[in-house]
């Protein structure tokens, strides 16, 4: 039916639009755009490296911070307490984290988190900017907890009880069963959950742009200002007056599109293979 085609057309349309609109900048700037370190539209110099780096640093930092929490929730709900009112409360609370709009996270982070970070930075002897990559990673970390947590929980619940029993029968403690049976068994599923969280972090726009400081310079410290691909597009798209400027931003959008799509597809593939085994 045509409707099935429509979905394909839609995605191809998106891809095509991005590619076509990036063409002017691809043609004018070539591939070295991707590692160019200077972004100065006024002088017509475009380099994407500050934003690529900013995106990678903030996303991975957010991931590192959030994974232990996601894992704890997954293990708590998947292994220790799958049923009961307290686990239900936790499960709903974590799902609620994903439901809160990102602009609200951004506003709160701006009003509350940034001053806290500023105090922290004063205490450790770093320039007390407050805003910056560190603050944005913190709020990002909170926002992406639910993704790895929920997938992780499902994966952990899939571990066959007979494997766990075999380990208990040999004299293992619960922690030993988790470490030697559950975690190895769900390794790839948990990894897929982390990928899902990563994909979410890479594409997050609003909360990041409100807190990261929005500078076009190469990030030099996690406590300094930065910018991500998504946040620079959000900030500068409507101001972009030259075609190459616009096109350079679209090219960032194209890179963002490709990277997040690939990560999400890999994650989904892993889950499919896991649940079909």
């Amino acid at each position, binding site marked *: 039916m045509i409707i099935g085609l429509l979905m394909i057309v839609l995605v191809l*349309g998106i891809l095509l639009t991005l590619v076509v609109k990036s063409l002017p900048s691809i043609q004018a700037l070539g591939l070295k755009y991707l590692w160019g370190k200077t972004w100065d539209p006024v002088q017509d110099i475009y380099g994407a490296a500050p934003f690529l780096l900013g995106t990678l640093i903030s996303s991975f930092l957010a991931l590192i911070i959030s994974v232990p*929490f996601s894992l704890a929730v997954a293990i708590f709900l998947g292994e220790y307490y799958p049923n009961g009112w307290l686990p239900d409360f936790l499960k709903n609370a974590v799902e609620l984290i994903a439901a809160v709009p990102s602009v609200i996270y*951004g506003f709160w982070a701006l009003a509350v988190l940034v001053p806290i970070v500023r105090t922290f930075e004063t205490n450790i002897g770093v320039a007390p900017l407050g805003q910056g990559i560190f603050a944005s990673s913190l709020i990002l970390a909170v926002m992406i907890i639910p993704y790895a947590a929920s997938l992780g929980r499902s994966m952990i619940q899939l571990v066959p009880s007979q494997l766990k029993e075999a380990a208990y029968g040999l004299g293992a403690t*619960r922690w030993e069963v988790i470490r030697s049976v559950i975690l190895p068994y769900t390794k790839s599923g948990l990894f897929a959950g982390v990928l899902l969280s990563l994909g979410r972090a890479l594409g997050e726009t609003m909360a990041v742009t409100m807190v990261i400081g929005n500078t076009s310079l190469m990030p030099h410290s996690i406590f300094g200002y930065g910018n991500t691909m998504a946040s620079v*597009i959000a900030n500068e798209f409507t101001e972009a007056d030259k075609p190459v400027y616009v096109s350079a931003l679209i090219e960032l959008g194209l890179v963002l599109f490709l990277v*997040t799509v690939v990560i999400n597809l890999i994650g989904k593939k892993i889950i499919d293979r896991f649940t079909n085994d």
Partner: protein
Amino acid sequence: MEIKSVKYRIGKNYGFKALVIIFAFACVVPLLFILSYILEQGITKINWRFLVNVPRPVGETGGGIVNALMGTILIIICASLIAIPIGILAGIYLSENKKSRLAYWSRLCVDILQGVPSIVIGIVAYFWLVKPFGFSAISGSVALAIMMLPIIVRATEETLKLLPASLKEAAFALGMPFHRVIFKVIVPVGISGILSGVMLSIARITGETAPLLFTAFGNPYLNFKIWKPMESLPHVIFTYATSPYDEWKDLAWGASLILLVWVLLLNIFTKLITRKWKVQL
């Protein structure tokens, strides 16, 4: 046999459990902080004037966000009108065609769509609808509709896949034509799952800002014409929150509370309905 001190292993066991519990519940702490802070800041800013006035210029008091409230409602209604029929039809198609090549690629595209960052969808909608026609609410609705599609398609497909084949077979055996079987028999039985998918998608896009940045764009006036720019709740929060004016920031807190309550209610409502209907399924 040399056994590592059993006491040590038991200690590690309890230690790990404690660690897991601490980290797991620590997640709830930021959420509670945020919710209570927004409640605290926003509750004092909401009054009748707030809800029915349009924003006043800086310096004047008594501004409100009625344009954003109406705008959000309108944009969501338009987005739903676009996404729901297409999404349900696509879901029906995918559940009926499990093996064909077209269905495989189609399903893949739905998965891809789910992972696309919202700002990218905003850009694309800009080039499709804003470049030729100017900023408009409808372009924002289209962007949001694209985001709603994967959720509705997925929910529809999964719900319909769970229905017993005998249901369809009985209808066919009675001589019903295909489209009737689908719309008069299959869909009504699966309506609860489909509906929860729809509600989930609405809850998802209600708080989205990025796709609206370059499409609906924002409008300081109350506007009901969907082919013109329109303000929306998330967008007004973003604009006012990042502004240097305290009166505007106050408006942003009030708006945040309203948006938060709206989204939370939608989510809770969806959960309740899903639970209630799933039981009957």
